[in-house]
């Protein structure tokens, strides 16, 4: 991987708060023009890592490189950060808030005005321009916050739970906007609990748990690494076979079928053979890819 390919390089980064190690020896790269899913349960160290990337705090050990340079305040202008816990000034007009946030990212005033009008119209918020935050619904505030994140046309977008509080229509709309960014060769780091969304949007993922990296790679690689031992099964009879722990690790019952996870070195062929021998009537036997949700649950609880 060459430097021009890599937007963000996190190398052996450790961050401690007193006795507590929030991020432990974490290394990963984010490639340019990709959507990078940064996943992990609450308290895994995601927010701490993101804060180090955007330059709010500095790592105790290790280094963070952005666009091939060591992280510095000047680079902050090229990042758009939408924190998970975010807000707006309660009593300030929407347009004034956006102007202020743009000024803090060094966007010239005239340019900022143009972009604010463009994005407010685009988000159907044109008539709310001179209203105060308290007049807006939660979803509208969310969209205003999103505008403030992209006003300075950042090269790296870091979104922490960007869809929480949005209705499905607006989620689709935001995904559309994000795909424009993707097509402009901009990099997006996307942190979320919603595995379905992550699965839909992300090229690469990184899963961390308890301050450490658990899993990383492209979505394809990750899934393939897990994909050999999961079977969707619909049948009548043969239930005894599924109790054989040398063959089946566990089963999850869905409405009209079940998901069977094979034990360690068992292979699907022998399971199928045993079921047929036991006289089960099989209407569906399909080797399936695990969902990101399955992977997440297995890795985090395991």
């Amino acid at each position, binding site marked *: 991987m060459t430097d021009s390919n890599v937007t963000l390089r996190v190398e052996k980064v450790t961050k401690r708060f007193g006795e507590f190690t929030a991020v432990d020896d974490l290394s990963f790269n984010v490639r340019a023009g990709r959507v990078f899913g940064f996943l992990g349960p609450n308290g895994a160290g995601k927010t701490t890592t993101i804060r180090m990337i955007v330059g*709010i705090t500095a790592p105790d050990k290790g280094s963070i490189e952005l666009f091939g340079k060591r992280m510095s*305040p000047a680079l902050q202008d090229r990042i758009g*950060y939408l924190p998970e*816990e*975010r*807000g707006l000034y309660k009593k300030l007009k929407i347009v004034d808030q956006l102007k202020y946030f743009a*000024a*803090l*990212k060094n966007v010239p005033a005239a340019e900022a005005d143009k972009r604010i009008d463009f994005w407010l119209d685009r988000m159907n918020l044109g008539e709310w321009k001179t209203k105060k935050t308290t007049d807006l619904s939660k979803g509208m505030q969310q969209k205003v916050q999103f505008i*403030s994140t992209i006003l300075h046309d950042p090269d790296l977008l870091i979104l922490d739970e960007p869809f929480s509080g949005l209705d499905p229509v607006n989620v689709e709309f935001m995904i559309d906007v994000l795909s424009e960014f993707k097509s402009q060769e901009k990099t997006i780091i996307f942190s979320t609990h919603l595995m379905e969304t992550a699965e839909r949007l992300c090229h690469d993922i990184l899963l961390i748990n308890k301050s450490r990296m658990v899993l990383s790679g492209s979505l394809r690689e990750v899934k393939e690494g897990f994909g050999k031992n999961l079977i969707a099964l619909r049948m009548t009879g043969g239930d005894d076979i599924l109790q054989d722990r040398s063959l089946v690790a566990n089963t999850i019952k869905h409405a009209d079928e079940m998901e069977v996870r094979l034990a360690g070195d068992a292979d699907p062929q022998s399971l199928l053979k045993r079921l047929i021998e036991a006289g089960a009537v099989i209407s569906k036997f399909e080797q399936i890819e695990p969902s990101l949700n399955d992977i997440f649950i297995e890795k985090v609880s395991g």
Partner: protein
Amino acid sequence: MRKFFAVVKHEYKRVVLKWSFLIGTLLLPLLAACFAVIPAVIFSIKGDPTRIAIVDPAGRIGSRLRENLSAERMSERAKKAAEESFGNMDASQQERMKQSSKQFTDSFVFVDYPYDPDKAAGLRDDLSNKILNDEIEAYLIIPPDIYAANAVFEFRSRKAGDFITNDSFKEALNNAVRSQRLADANISEARLEELSADVELDAKGVNELGEEKDSGGVMAASFIIGLMIYITLAIYGQAIMGAVVEEKETRIAEILFSSARPFELMMGKLVGVGLAGLTQLGIWIASAAVLVGFLAASLDAADIVSSIPSITPLMILYFLIFFLLGFFIYASIFALIGSMVTTMQEGGQFAFPPIMILLVGFYFSFAVVRDPGSALSFWVSIAPFFAPITMPVRILSETPPFWQIALAIFVNAVTIAGLVWLASRVYRIGMLMYGKRATLPELWKWIRQS
């Protein structure tokens, strides 16, 4: 630097464009103007003249009284009295006197009522009837013998509550009777004046440079300056705390910190709000200057204006410098508090200690006014936390040598540097700590962390 100015501009506009600022800034001068101008306007509205009948059996007092109540004599005497007792009168008393004499002019119409000894018994009934029939408003019966022990001047008026008229009437009557007594004793009024002239007590303060200074308005002016600085520091300090708490409460801090350095953000906030404070003080000072000018012109009494202690442009510069010193001291304390608490209510509890310190400084200013040269005045006008209030008061009541002013500025500037350093360390960590208020040991840890 551009981001710093963006923060300054944002904070300045946020304070200045608020209604409370506009009201506070404009209301105070307006109130002051009202207190100065409205009484003058009201007192200048003339009532209807009082028709009065004077019954003077002896025929000795009536004509003197009429003369005393004439327009020329009234204004002449008021002017003389004002000149004589000027030192003991404040502006409002003087104003009242001037207005009353003005109003008195032409406020009496004398109704002839020839005295008829035959009808002496029904005299009072007759006069009362005239009042009831609206022919006259008042009457005065002068006793036949003004030297008699039981001599009573009977004054009956429908307008008994008109204190200005009654006062002046009583004075005019007294003077008339006195003149008559003097004439009876063969003493001229001029001679009496010579005999009863007041001694002249020349009471003026002397400062260290040996210059004389009028002590009259100094006390009041020092008090006003001290109070003004105390109030503005308390208000703007808490405004800073409110702004900091809002950014923490709404989690805007996280976005801000990902865009600019915490130190830039905090200093921008302090400077922006400080400039707003200067704007307000500037408007107040300018309107005070206009008001004094107006008073001087409208009363054509340069004397009143001269009783206001002379405030030089240098003094105003000092006031502004000390206001700024005080502002940065208290604003950085309030910024520190704002970033360690989670809500405004919690902040309110912690705001108590700095407000107390501020209040103590304000109380010290009384000691400074009473004796600006004392050792206590010296120390409190240089000490950090107190000097921003006490030094301006001291400068006004008795300007200390320049080295003391410079020392106070230096000591407080160093204090600011220390406080800003502390506050910025607490700020950069505290602003991202949600959930619970920081304890003192935690605070200490944040300060020690690089």
